């Protein structure tokens, strides 16, 4: 049983923002795979007086492929992400990562936007999206704004969304050719588990570009990029020494906690293992 709430089903983003401005304590309902769980957990103390179901807003679930960018609607389900032909072809790391999350039924319900706004430090998609240089689009009473995903998270369960604001899309540039990206994850079971540690790795070294991305989850209050590691890889490429150094820098940058799933010490060590593994896989591909 869940506490009662007033139910709103806005037909547009503007209407949603109006309701959220009027009722700052209202919760946004996307797929429900987080909110509906939280409402069942009394220790969270979450009893929103109202719930705003945004799933009937047309277009928010669209995945738009343009020449320069891929824009994922906030309500795109994880299943939609997994099944989209362009995403599968050019960014297979996204379906691969989404498959770690939950189960098929959960992925049918869960949305990209809901996952980001839940802002779990252990969420798997954020590091991958950081490696893709994603930006988010936010609608609100003050108009629309966009910002890099890296600035979207404030802490565990907290984003920069202001009262009345709604996340509407996530967009990343369509690199040509796409950079090889790997996501490495440590968990215990093959399904249903929250990551103990996760690392997204990307390295691009060609005539025009020397760049790398190293992004981590589950080892800090928010997903983080490790720029020190990125610059080593960008400068030196995927040499043994650079890989080792990047792994160590990533480990050092992690600020994990100990909880029921793992200790901080283990998480920190595993960051090094995952980064090393992901970079070696990129090198050997």
């Amino acid at each position, binding site marked *: *049983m869940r506490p009662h709430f007033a139910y709103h089903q806005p037909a547009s983003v503007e209407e949603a923002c109006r309701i959220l401005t009027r009722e700052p304590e209202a919760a946004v309902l996307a797929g429900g795979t987080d909110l509906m769980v939280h409402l069942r957990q009394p220790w969270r103390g979450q009893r929103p007086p109202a719930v705003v179901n945004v799933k009937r807003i047309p277009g928010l679930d669209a995945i738009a492929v343009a020449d320069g960018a891929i824009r994922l609607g906030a309500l795109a389900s994880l299943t939609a992400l997994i099944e989209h032909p362009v995403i599968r072809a050019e960014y297979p790391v996204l379906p691969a990562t989404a498959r770690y999350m939950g189960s098929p039924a959960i992925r049918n319900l869960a949305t990209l936007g809901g996952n980001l706004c839940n802002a779990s430090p252990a969420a798997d998609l954020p590091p991958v999206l950081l490696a893709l240089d994603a930006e988010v689009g936010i609608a609100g009473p003050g108009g629309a704004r966009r910002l890099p995903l890296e600035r979207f998270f404030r802490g565990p369960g907290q984003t920069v969304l202001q009262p009345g604001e709604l996340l509407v899309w996530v967009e990343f540039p369509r690199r040509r050719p796409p950079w090889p990206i790997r996501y490495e994850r440590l968990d*215990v079971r093959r399904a*249903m588990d929250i990551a103990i540690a996760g690392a997204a790795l990307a390295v691009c070294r060609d005539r025009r570009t020397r760049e790398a991305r190293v992004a981590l989850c589950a080892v800090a209050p928010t997903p983080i990029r490790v720029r020190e590691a990125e610059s080593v890889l960008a400068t030196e490429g995927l040499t043994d020494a650079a890989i080792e150094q990047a792994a160590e820098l990533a480990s050092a940058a992690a600020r994990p906690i100990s909880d*029921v799933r*793992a200790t901080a010490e283990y998480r920190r060590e*595993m960051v090094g293992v995952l980064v090393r*593994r992901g970079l070696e896989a990129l090198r050997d591909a």
Partner: protein
Amino acid sequence: MSGETRTEPFKVIGTRVVKLDALEKVTGAVRYLPDLEAPGMAWGKILRTPVPHARIRRIDTRKAEALPGVLGVITGYNVEQAPFGYAKDHLALKRDVVRCIRDEVAAVAAETEEIAAEACRLVEVEYEELPAVFDPVAALAPDAPRIHPQFPGNLVNFSYKFEAGNVERAFREADVVVEGTYRLNYVTTACLGTMAAIAAWDPRGNLTMWSTTQIPFLYQRELADALGTTGDRIRVIQPPVGGNFGRGLDLYPVDIIAALLARHVQRPVKIVFDRDEEFLASPTREPCSFTLRTAARADGILLGRDARVLIDNGAYVSWGSTTPYVMLTTVVGFYRCPNVRFDSTIVYTNNVYSGSMRGYGNLESTFAIEAQMDDLAETLGLDRLAIRKQNANRPGDVTPQGLRITSCALEECFDAVARDIRKPIGREPRPGWKRGIGYAGMFHVGGGARVYRSDGCGAIVKLDDFGKVSLITGASEIGQGSETVLAMIVAEELGIPFERVGVVNDDTAVKPWDVGVHASRTTFIAGNAALLAARDVKGQLLTLAAREIEEPVEELDCEDGFVFVRRVPQRRIAYEKVVRAGHFREGGRILIGQAFYDPPTQMLDKEFRGNVSVTYAFAAQAALVEVEEATGRIEVLRVASAHDVGRALNPVGCEGQIEGGIHMGLGYALTEELKLDRGRVLNGGFLDYKLLTAADMPEILITLIETVDEAGPFGAKGLGESGTIPISAAVANAVKDAVGVRMTELPMTPERVWRALRRSSPDR
């Protein structure tokens, strides 16, 4: 059992049948207890303490009672209740003191579940927290907080102590001694269907309970005592249940509270645990620290064992406290070992308390013993399989306790798993992963277990004038398929198609007495009862048929629903005709057979000597694993599982029990741990109490070895727990084989393995 009228080839026994209730289950027609309603039913909810150890200073239920829709609120202060439980140390609704985080302080009955839950939040309770103790060693200290005033030193006064032979000399004279202490933590049954009860009193003061119990007749008696009434006024109905695995082996506060609420508000009351509550309040397997030493000769022959187990009993005594009984049996009797000693210390703490859970102490003891069989082999430079076969129990053995081993195929079980585990797997270990194989065997009761004074089960077989047979059995169906195999036994014995047998087993007002589902006893004991009852009714059938066919009884036999003359098989008469002829006449009779099978066994005496089971079950398992050294992850690629089952009456059922048992045992080995911190449950949900998913399971290769036990129904022995018992030992031995570390704590999570690897070789 011997004296059988049916021999091979069998028509029903050994065939692959569809479980009797499978159609209801795959169509959603089955109605579990949460699906049931009684007219006028109210919902009950329990309020539990937020702190593990405290004095109750004040309870004020007025606000709760005033909430519209609330019918009544009960506490330990406004109801009549008597202490219950094995040690009578437990009151359903607590008075004065709460001792663990489960403790029930109040209960509300209301028109809806929601109102009942809201009312619980309105009950005001003032607690004065008391110093608490959460570790058995700390609880034994002289200045430790006392959990129960009547039990000084926090000792549960059960003594499981045994000694045979000359243990000191054995250890002195041994060529090698290995020792270790193993830490086994909390796990829980985690059934998909939660605990529940519906209680309804009638105007005469009779109570009907719908319950998830698996011991309806004992429950009837104990519930009556707790409520201050008599057993004849209590009727227990067992709807289909969503799993049990030992959970239902005791009477629990929820049962008493449902009855008390129903009495208080004069309406039927239903209480169903939600998942949080199930993880919190459903009984666990008992956590323990198991210290074992094993002594052996240079040639591998075992000389002695010395075991001490320290058990965290939690706040009250339930069946978990009696598991040293089985631990003792294993230490003393598993593998031949002449000089043996066992002792246990069971300590009250402010942690949650344990019940019985599949395997019942045997997982823990087998884990220790099998770790040391490998350690011995390594120290002596012997083959790990050879040392096991060398010391294996054999038919005709009598263990130092006096357990008489009759049929036994332990060596053959080891041979079977050794063969299966080595079949090509089709791929090499991945880079960074090391592969290993581990073995473990087990020995458990297989022909009932006289842990209560009675180990009996009653059966009635009724043959009607449509040729349909009803088996009314005392045995309970808890999802494991007992009613299916019992129907198969009756069908085989009576020579009728399996589809013609129906089973009635869910109502104490109807079914004959049975002690309950435990100790893998149902196929054997209830099977023998059903067989005897079927034989009884068959005799009546043949006698009646003899008159109809006008042939002597000795000339007759039955098959396919017909009684026929052996030398002229075309002369035959259908059962239904015989039965009709029997009662559609003057001076008629109906055909009902009955039996109560209580095996020729003994309860253990004060020295823990005796033969508690008619026969014993044996099994061996092997695990093929890969371990990733960088992370400590273990992947089990294959499990080979060989079982001396006596006879596989229901092969689908046997495999199902083994496969499910392996799942539960692998969870114990790898991922399942109910974590408590200062008495509070940290991971009470399926997200972080990790049951293995379909994607996590290894390949399973099963061998069923039929020793055809002379006492079992058609030769069968018990099987329900065997798949679970040795697997964690086999996996731990496989990990040792793969990466050289001896894991002494379960579960072997990646982090634990990683730490063990680091400790053993810091540069890893």
